């Protein structure tokens, strides 16, 4: 005899609940969690190096950095900020259990801002909530200004777009306002910034933006588009 069991559950229910719990726990202790995503090489680690130096005077920071393999990014960041490398063993994105485990190993368990540098990939990380309060997508000018529309889920779930490597604008055909507009058809509330981690252009605005977001979190009105 056959029979049908009705279920009706979200397959990611458990992971989503864990991420929501981590987000609440971090908010309660005053830690703003920022998930940095981009394609490989857009400049996430370099931006974090500069951010750690510039913002480190004002706020306490910590970084969890994800890669398929190697500790190279953690080694780059270690002189500036408490950091733990998360290696996914081949998986193309981070998941909340890795983040929870990495967090437990940090020397600084109560940073004002916890950065998570995700694995370089614009597809899978879009579908994985890491318990962040803010998702920031980096787009470097050498990737082309037509990219936001090609990765709708990533842009829809992000809170801010950082256009990176703007020191290279004289050498590549990249229209900043076109890229911003393209992204806003997917996410009209997207905050947009632009930086060069080489010249330091835009770094002050970026740090201001982070400090404001941290203030807002402390006063209990953080918003996030991730799910």
């Amino acid at each position: 005899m056959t029979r049908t069991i009705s279920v009706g559950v979200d397959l990611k229910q458990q992971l989503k609940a864990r991420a929501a719990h981590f987000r609440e726990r971090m908010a309660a202790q005053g830690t703003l969690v920022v998930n940095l995503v981009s394609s490989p090489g857009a400049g996430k680690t370099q931006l974090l190096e500069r951010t750690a130096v510039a913002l480190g005077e004002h706020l306490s920071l910590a970084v969890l950095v994800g890669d398929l393999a190697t500790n190279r990014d953690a080694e780059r960041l270690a002189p500036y900020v408490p950091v733990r490398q998360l290696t996914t063993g081949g998986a193309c994105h981070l998941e909340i259990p890795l983040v929870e485990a990495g967090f437990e190993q940090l020397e600084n368990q109560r940073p004002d801002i916890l950065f998570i540098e995700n694995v370089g990939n614009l597809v899978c990380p879009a579908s994985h909530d890491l318990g962040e309060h803010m998702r920031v997508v980096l787009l470097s000018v050498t990737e082309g200004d037509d990219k936001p529309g090609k990765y709708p889920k990533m842009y829809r779930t992000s809170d801010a777009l950082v256009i990176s490597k703007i020191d290279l604008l004289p050498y590549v055909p990249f229209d900043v306002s076109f890229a911003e507009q393209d992204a806003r058809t997917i996410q009209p509330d997207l905050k947009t910034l632009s930086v060069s981690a080489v010249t330091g252009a835009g770094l002050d605005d970026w740090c201001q933006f982070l400090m404001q977001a941290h203030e807002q979190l402390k006063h209990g009105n953080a918003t996030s588009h991730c799910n």
Partner: protein
Amino acid sequence: MHEYSLVRSLLRQVETIVSDEGGGVVEEVRIEVGAFSGVDITLLELAFADEASRHLGYQPRLQTTAVPLEVECQRCRSRSVIEDFEFRCSECGHQQVIIVSGEEVRLMEIEIRELNNAS
């Protein structure tokens, strides 16, 4: 990659539910896949074909139903289906819309053959 880990999680959930229900042979698993879930149905079906027999020791059918990406307008409250990922109300053109469906992969039903009554 991501489809494989999703299928493994699906199979674990199916096994738990079936054993809580007194056991049986799984004949068919029915799922809904949102157009904005980040999951590709073809890849999911391939992953299921690969993983199910390894996990269960036999191969049940997988029935997938695509769920469109639907949004609700924050101005006029009407609902629109988004096909080109331009998030905009099809009634009034407003851009402030919230997603109401199409983001999830849901396990809907499991069809089982009960062991003691098997013929």
